């Protein structure tokens, strides 16, 4: 059965709602759910103070309303499914290790930060630090997938160590900065300073981009691994051109300030173009 949570009120003050996750709410009755504590600003409140609750959760939660000010939904979740029919707030699915979150609207900053498994799909745009690490830490996305159909802010995949981030729109500056490993695929424009301080990992762009002076051009080639990724995305219903699968890519390696084992692949239909 699906648990429906409908946000009743218009929020100015953020709600700390890490509790909204199948892990925490599964098996509870409606009245028990209504009493589950959460923090509104600096006060302890209950879920029932803010949400119309119907149904129970056996793995799936549907959230209706504008969740922009609701933080940390699905954080640390290990399985199940959350659907947000609207926008989501900061820290969506941060540190999650399994399950799936789908957002119809936009997502906030730190979406999927430090997550280690599962999948987040954002239909709209997402904020800064998607799949990133929190300040001072060096443990960004460690596994799982984040797919953003719109644009993202700066530092997508900061310090990521594994997993996949797909951005169908544009990404901001410092995409994949401090990256240790993993894959970022951007279909729109890349911001500047892509891959700064990256050690390993792949950043793929379907558009041209200027790279830092510490990146070196290696070659134009047809990376076979990428075919796997793109076909996999196509299977998920994302539209991918044949040319992007069949075509060639310019490979740049860097960042020579670090291990120099990372790569930026820039799509180019044919040699030299």
């Amino acid at each position: 059965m699906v648990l429906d949570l409908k946000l009743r009120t218009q929020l100015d003050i953020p709600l700390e709602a890490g509790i909204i996750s199948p892990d925490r709410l599964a098996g509870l009755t409606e009245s028990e759910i209504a009493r589950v504590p959460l923090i509104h600003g600096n006060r302890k409140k209950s879920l029932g103070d803010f949400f119309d609750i119907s149904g129970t959760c056996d793995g799936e939660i549907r959230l209706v309303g504008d969740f922009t000010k609701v933080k940390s939904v699905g954080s640390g979740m290990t399985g199940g499914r959350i659907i947000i029919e609207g926008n989501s707030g900061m820290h969506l699915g941060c540190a999650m290790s399994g399950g799936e979150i789908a957002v119809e609207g936009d997502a906030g900053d730190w979406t999927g930060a430090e997550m280690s498994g599962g999948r987040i799909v954002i239909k709209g745009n997402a904020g800064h630090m998607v799949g990133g690490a929190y300040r001072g830490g060096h443990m960004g996305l460690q596994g799982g997938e984040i797919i953003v159909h719109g644009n993202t802010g700066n530092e997508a995949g900061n310090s990521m160590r594994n997993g996949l981030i797909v951005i169908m729109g544009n990404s901001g500056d410092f995409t994949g900065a401090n990256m240790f490993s993993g894959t970022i695929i951007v279909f729109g424009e890349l911001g500047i300073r892509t891959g700064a301080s990256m050690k390993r990992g792949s950043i793929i762009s379907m558009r041209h981009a200027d790279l830092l002076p510490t990146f070196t051009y290696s070659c134009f080639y047809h990376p076979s691994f990428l075919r796997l990724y793109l076909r996999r995305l196509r299977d998920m219903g994302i539209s991918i051109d044949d040319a992007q699968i069949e075509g060639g890519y310019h490979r740049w390696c860097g960042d020579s300030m670090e291990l120099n084992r990372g790569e930026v692949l820039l799509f180019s239909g044919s040699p030299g173009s």
Partner: protein
Amino acid sequence: MLRIVNGKVHDPANDIDGEVRDICVKDGKIVESVPAEARRIDAHGMVVMPGGVDIHCHIAGPKVNLARKLQPEDHRYDVQHRTPITRSGTGGTVPSTFTTGYRYATLGYTTAMEAAVPPLGARHAHEELQDTPVIDKGFYILMGNNILLYDLLKEGRFKDLREAVAWWLNATKSYAVKLVNPGGDEPWKGQRNANVTKLDKKIDSLDITPRQVIKGLVDAAADLDLPHPAHIHCNNLGHSGNYETTLETMRTAEGRRVHITHIQFHSYGGELGSEPLSKAPEIIEYINTHPNVSADVGQIMFGKATIMTGDAPLSWLLRNLSGDKKWVNADTECESGCGILPFAYQEHIYTHALQWAIGLELFLLSKDPWRLVLSTDHPNGGSFASYPRLIRLLMDRNFRKEEMSKVNQRALRKINRSHLDEREYTLQEIAIITRAGPARLLGLRDKGHLGVGADADIAIYTEDDNKEEMFGVPRYVIKDGQMIIDNHEFKNDHEGRTLHVAPAYDHDIEQVIRPFFEDFYTIRFDNYPVTEHSLTLHQPFPIERRSINR
């Protein structure tokens, strides 16, 4: 008022070893007796000890705060909630000040000494210590790389040197003289990150040797009759073969009192640049046979640590070995250097396992617990939070054996296993190395014991075969007679005192120091001293001048 009854009292300073007797408390002091209406604590099945005294830790001041600021990731998952009586904070290897105070208290520690503050940062250290609740505290000032003192040494002006040391202790309201890698800052800062290696090799630009610095300050501290002697972090910390430097440093004291700190890090054999070996037996043999020398161990404990040291070249070396991105160097004009980096000791690494075993060797081969006391050089060797575990390692040989089976066996094969197999510390010995001993070494007459007149700093632990649990969760903690932890519950916040020495000195020395300040410092001489006015609760230890004729 308080009467603690039925507890087994371990008060080594007063030769009480597990005797069941009453302890009475009034007005923050231990007293002979209290009226019948005083609260009684039935300590049946419990052990009563003086509050713990940490002789060497890093809990306040410029470098500690840099290390704190450096590691938000270390604080995030170790938080301290605010309660109606206590402030919130964060933990990790470098906890916030409030958390530091509360966490020491929740281990039954009531006094802790910050071991390395550049004099220029004294005002800062005082501010942090004022925000470190419950415990009494003080700090040692870094003098082993002080340019003005070098000038005086070079010119052989030993009397001026002594007066300057006294002035500095007064000006900073600090507790002791600390030397870190004496002579090392000048090559580090002035000669493209070089370092000193030998005690008798002249430091190029200064025309003096590290040995002269050590000797000069050991003598000055002794001549000034300071309650705690020169507290020395020897040269060549962490380097293979450094035990000879350590022995030489101890010899340099020539029979005068000296305290060698975190000596575990200075007990290595082997060739410079290659794998270390244990020279713990040689080092401890020297200490056992030289009553003028005391030391704290600086045990390493596996897990996360933060290296923070006045020994900047060492941190640079470690940084280049560990590959961690984060590294801090901070030079303090005319006085000191500093290096910081996050670190983790790992069981499977040869060197780390060896360091761990060397620390245990030192403890287990020591013949005089009064002179070899417990420390982890928090947070360099590990957090003070690991003291209970360390106590268990010392008291429980089966546990020790079990732990030994988890570490790099190649390292264990390099030491004499028989040193680690047998001995178990007694409760009385633990009471010595964690409270009575450090208090005596610090010259804190009212601490580390439960005799009449002592500060009523008391820890009461429930007896338990698992010593880690026993020492990790005291049943009662009393500070200055205040019930801080009452039956495991944190009941009261409390403001501890700052302890500092106030040695008499010849004010003419200011005429020597002032011009140097005007030339080479960027802060005015008159703005440098920390005045009594800017301290809150503090306790000066005035030191009368004996007639000195040296």
